[in-house]
């Protein structure tokens, strides 16, 4: 089965992108993803449970993530919890989106919407 072109998923919604980014540093369970997103954005983005699981469901269907077989140590594991991990496709999609955003940011910078890199600080 040939893999779908990562670009066909772009642009990602901010919520989806944040979920993929949260999983980029390792597998997590649902609440872990919410915690990570909140921490990484300084509270600017708050994922709600219902939204998160809608996103996870679609990401699973499109094979951007998988449910992980591995579990952390038994003392911190809760048998109800599932862990999710990025697939290679998911990682590529997130990278492609990041590149796309980088280009957009570069464009914004060239139009002096942002201070240029290296200067300004």
């Amino acid at each position, binding site marked *: 089965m040939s893999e779908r072109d990562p670009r066909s998923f772009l642009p990602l919604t901010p919520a989806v992108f944040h979920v993929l980014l949260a999983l980029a540093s390792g597998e997590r369970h649902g609440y872990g993803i919410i915690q990570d997103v909140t921490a990484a954005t300084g509270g600017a983005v708050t994922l709600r449970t*219902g939204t*998160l699981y809608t996103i996870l469901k679609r990401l699973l269907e499109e094979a951007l993530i998988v449910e992980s077989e591995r579990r952390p140590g038994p003392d911190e594991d809760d048998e109800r*919890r599932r862990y999710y991990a990025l697939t290679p496709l998911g990682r590529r999609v997130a990278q492609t989106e990041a590149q796309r955003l980088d280009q957009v940011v570069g464009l914004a910078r060239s139009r002096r919407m942002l201070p240029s890199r290296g200067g300004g600080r």
Partner: protein
Amino acid sequence: MTRLYAWMLRWLRPDVPADLRHEMTATFAGVMSASSSEGPLRVARAAAAEYADAALARFRRDPLEPRQRHPGPARGPSFVPSVQDWRSAVRRAFAHPGYAATVAGVLALGIAVNTIVFSVADSTLFRGLPYPNGPQLIEVFNMDPAGKFSFPGLAPDTFAEWREQTDVFEALEGWNYGSFILLGGAEPQRINGAYVTPGLFDALGVRPIRGHGFEPRDGEPGRDDRVIISERLWHQRFGARDDAIGQQIALNDRPYTIVGVMPPHFRFPASHQLLWLPAALEQPARGRLQGYGRLTRGLTREAAQTRLDTLAASLAIEKPRADGWRLKLAPARGSVPNASMARALQILTGAVLIVLLIACANLANLGVAQALARRRELAIRAALGASRLRLVRELFAEQLFLACAGGAVGLALAVWGVQLAIALAPAELTLWTPGEIRIDGRILAFTAGLTLASAVLFGIVPAWRASRADASDALKTRASSALAHGRLRTGLVIVEVALSVVLLTGAALLIRSFVSLTQQDPGFDPRGLVTVQFEVPADRYPAGARRAFLEQVAGEIRRVPGVTAVSIADGVAPRGGAIYFGQLEIEGRARESGETVLPATSVDPSYLATMRIPIIAGRGFTSDDPQTSAVVSRSLAHTLSGNAGNAIGARFRLTTSGAWYTVIGVAGEVRQSRQMERETVYEMYQPIWRPSTAPAAPAAVRASAGGARTFVSYTFAVRAADATAVTTPIKQAIWRVDASQPVGDVLPAEALLAQSLSEDRFAAALMGAFATLALVLATAGLFAVLAQLVAQRRQEIGVRMALGASIRDVVRLIVGRGLAMTIAGVAIGLAGAWASARFLASQLSGVSTHDPLSFTIVPVVLIGVALLASWIPARRALTVNPVDALRAE
């Protein structure tokens, strides 16, 4: 919180598999525990956001396909709107706030007023007894031996006999009214209660909420000192404390022990019964008992009646009784308000149905207008490949959404309105209502169903037709479009106007009648007059001692500063004393055939002067007049002897009472209560005391209007400089004579008169409100049609103006159209109002059913309002710039 989340997921998210729901719940728990340190407000906000998110997430667009419309799963043709249909419906509703608000508003009003009136009418007139066993209960009446009429109250010995007939009655219980003085409160309180056989509450199927019911032998000597109190009294006297059970209260100077508290809204037999005492059949002093029972299982009422008739015949031979043994069984339905109140409610129910019809016509009108406005859009979308089913589904979803929004608002209004209606309703309406007045689910379903159906039907059918139109036609046709729709809409407006004319005329008649009642001369001078209702316990003041007591009280009241005169009577109009019935017999003449109703007030010699009732002929009473002397009203004097002067010395009697009265004077007419007014035009007065010179004479048998068993009603008529200032000093004066004597209403006569019109005021006010609502709805309908007309004919108007049409021509075009519709509606409506006015006849006083003023004012008002409603669209037409209009073409 977490359990609620899990529960909500299970019900709202059937799309999520169970294991994933557990997972989500765990995540939710994590989120909530993390936020728990941030203060309750934040926690609540987070929880609310989580709940909403979980409920709505399935309706979100696909997170991976944000730009595309959700294609949805492949589905067969279905009328059930998809999520997407709902979404576009809601969007559309917010995009057309005017239309959406009007549809929802009309629905809300229609549902609310109908639910309110039907709920009140149903609770008071139609609903059966609100007891668990209500449907199986029967009421047992006596029947006279000839089987002609039935009357309540079974003698205790027959009651015991019938109780033995267990093959007919599974249970036979009884009750009787009781009146009591309750001490221990801020002031002595005269309260109503009832004596009930110990098994009555079980037969009804109602159990006390505190304590227990009566036991089988309660009421017998030694076990008759127990009482069950109502929830209301429990709150008033005991602050709803549990320790009320076992406490004692003093009733008629005797201690009783509280054994139980009945549930809220338990009313037996009426809402003013505050407590119940046990009645034993062996205590005939309790009087006759009204029968309530349940028939033996499997026996129909008809079969039971046949069986009872046979039994009665054999009992009549075995143990003959003067009043016979026959019984009549009737389905138990409790008491109902008096006939005129019932009539008023029926009229209001009819009125509110008309409002409902107008609301439906208005919805239809709006639906057609909307379809017309969207004709082009629908035709284009159909041409571009949207299936008609899809279009209709979308419209269906939109109408349904608006209908639900309107329904929710309507329900809220109805809940509030029923409370308001109870607060405003005359006491007569709610007193006898056996249960709580509340919104009935069936009624709500009916009104909501009807309005929803019309909203949906009239929203979809025209649109369906519009969507069928050929796209090129729809795009081409403009000014001349939709003639057929125009006719339909014109018809609807005419119907609305006609129906509102009917309502407005009815309201005008009722209001005119009410105004004429308030302006009627009451026949006495109510200014500065205070009436004091006063019930004397017959056991404490037996007939011999009563006069001295009452005169002592009158003397004490006379000493209150500001009081100029005090008189004693057994009632003051419109709450009169006694009512005599019978055939009128005039000395020297043949007996009159029909039944005469004669309100009779027993008064002391100063009464007519205190009340300022004019003496037209003869004289008033002195303390030497015998009790068979009478002062009669002018109408009775006319019947007796043709005119007032000749009536002096005439003698008459009512066949039932036996005593012959001699007329010594003729007095002016005094207005009676509204109900009595419908029965009779006569009045009479007689001395309240026996002449001091005469030995004891047998008192006439009188039917007291009060009906209290152990109390005798009196009223003091008090003249004072300022009626409102003396009410409290009067009570204190009475308590200086006897501190345990309860005092009833102490009311300025003007308040009493106003109270006597409460039914009329209620009916006129509600009818006025409904008529106003009808007028607003009809005007809105008219306005909508004309506004649409202007919008459709913009180009035509522009062309006409470009070709030299004057402002007058344009105005005439629009206003003329509006007037034509109005006049057609008014003509039909007037004919309907003329024909239906006779239903109001029994409610009207001082105004004819075809009152010319009412029938003139209504058309004038309607045409005036119609002109206003036409003027705004006409002005809009005048702003049409011919150049713009032509360019658009």
